């Protein structure tokens, strides 16, 4: 597990590195969700560059597409493309735009508009059931995107079709661009909402790789029900002056801030 924790620090450094180079990116959210992606790609998902076109691969669809830097650094680490490609992030004519796109190897769906990941994931999960395949589908949602009605349309359908091969993870960092999520549009009690929609729910510390792995290992939480992991995270996690500070939603560090942040992320806490 120490390796996994070190991997998270490495990913955080790379997120900042490429956001700093691109002078653009969603810093806070990428840092809040990176432990989830770390555990998914290194411990859970049955997918690799070699198996990416296999019909039996596990699928990961990132609904909170704006935190693409987290996805890109993980995909690069897993060998889907050379990490040096990320030097072009958000640059003129680059495939590496500010949201997931299938032009990048390893990306399942083009996302970025919010509230799209869950319906598409439910469709893929339903296809698995129809074809008697045992792959699983994971989608990462932000807590800020939950008011999108399409999420709840899909939540109904996923339960209706008993999609226990579907797992939604809510990166609950509590902050969105306008302010605290509970002040913008309160979605609590979130667990009870999902439960009442027919989902099996589990809370987890979303920045604790050990706790995350335990939760993923326990899937499905209930046979015949889709699972949702409510991952309690900290926006800007890992860099002291970014944590829980809204200005880092898509803030780009100055040279000095970048050096301090990289210093903080260079050693185990």
């Amino acid at each position, binding site marked *: 597990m120490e390796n996994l924790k070190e991997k998270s620090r490495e990913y955080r450094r790379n997120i900042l590195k490429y956001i700093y180079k691109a002078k653009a990116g969603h810093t806070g959210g990428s840092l809040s969700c990176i432990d989830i992606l770390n555990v998914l790609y290194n411990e859970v998902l049955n997918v690799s560059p070699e198996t990416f076109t296999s019909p039996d691969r596990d699928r990961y669809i990132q609904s909170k597409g704006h935190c693409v830097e987290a996805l890109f650094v993980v995909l690069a680490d897993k060998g889907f493309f050379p990490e040096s490609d990320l030097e072009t992030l958000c640059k003129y004519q680059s495939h590496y735009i500010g949201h997931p796109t299938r032009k990048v190897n390893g990306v399942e769906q083009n996302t970025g508009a919010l509230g799209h990941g869950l319906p*598409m994931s439910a469709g*893929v999960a339903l296809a698995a059931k129809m074809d008697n395949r045992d792959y699983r589908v994971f989608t990462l949602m932000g807590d800020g995107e939950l008011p999108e009605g399409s999420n709840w349309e899909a939540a109904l*359908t996923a339960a209706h079709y008993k999609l226990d091969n579907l797992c939604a993870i809510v990166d609950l960092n509590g902050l969105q661009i306008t302010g605290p999520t509970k002040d913008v549009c309160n979605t609590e009690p979130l667990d009870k909402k999902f439960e009442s929609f027919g989902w099996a729910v589990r809370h987890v510390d979303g920045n604790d790789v050990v706790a995350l792995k335990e939760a993923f290992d326990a899937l499905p939480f209930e046979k015949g029900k889709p699972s949702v992991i409510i991952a309690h995270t900290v926006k800007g996690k890992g860099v002291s002056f970014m944590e829980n500070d809204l200005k880092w939603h898509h803030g780009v560090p100055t040279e000095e801030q970048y050096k301090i942040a990289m210093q903080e992320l260079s050693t185990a806490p």
Partner: protein
Amino acid sequence: MGNEILKAPIGGTGAANQDVFSATLQELAATDRNIVVVTSDSRGSGKLVPFGKKYPAQIVEVGIAEQNLVGMAAGLASAGKKVFAVSPACFLTARALEQIKNDVAYSNNPVKLIGISAGVSYGALGSTHHSLHDFAVLRAIHNMTIVVPADSFETTQAVQQVAASEQPYYLRFGKKPMPLLDETGETTFQIGKGRVIRRGSDVAIIANGETVFPALQAARKLATENGIEATVVSMHTIKPLDEKLLSELALECKAILTVEEHSVNGGLGEACASWLLKNRYHKPFDILGIPDEYTVTGSQVEILNHYGISESGIASRVKTLLNTLT
């Protein structure tokens, strides 16, 4: 009369295009278990109840939730299913437009979007149920082919061709029984290629969907009563537009009239006008569609008649257009 291809009796009632769609899909599903229909409480209006009974494992009901309909359809298609997402055109292309744009077109998931009861098919149910915007919005979305068959022959062919294709499509159907526009079987149907229903050198009438038949009636009326020979084209594919045919029509005919069951803004007419002007074909040209106003109340036929999308209305519009030449 001109050297007309059509031999079907005018005024005969055939099957409604959306019924033909459903029947064709049943045939395809018989040999292809990957065909999946997704509906939003719309299997009744889509005439898909028999399909659902015959192939219960190949129909997915999502309830009245069009965004989820298209999002799930995209997911199913990405996992290898041949997906037909069926919903009234008015809801499908407005409520789920972002899912069409992102989950289908942009992500390149080969969903076949089926807009049923399109145009003003719902008549007096009013504007909420009319789709007079769908050509316009979908034309502006890259990677979306738009097909509007005129009769059962075109519908059957279109459904078979899109089922065999791994691209996204939007097919638009009405529920009015349509006469077969060609019984000879001599003509071919190819998506992206307009179908010439009748030939004449005075004027070209370019129509699609359920307006092709009144365009043909008008052409016959013009020939009989006025000695005006009209070419009638079923421009079933709006995008990509058959540019070759357009240029031929512009060279052969003195004037061009487009007819569509859609707003005059952004549809077939403007697509043709744009291409013709850009390519320096300066012809007398007019667009007949639903004007930019709150639509009059009435049945589909009454609404279309009101705006001149009818045998006499189209004939009259052609005569006005040709008068500009003198």
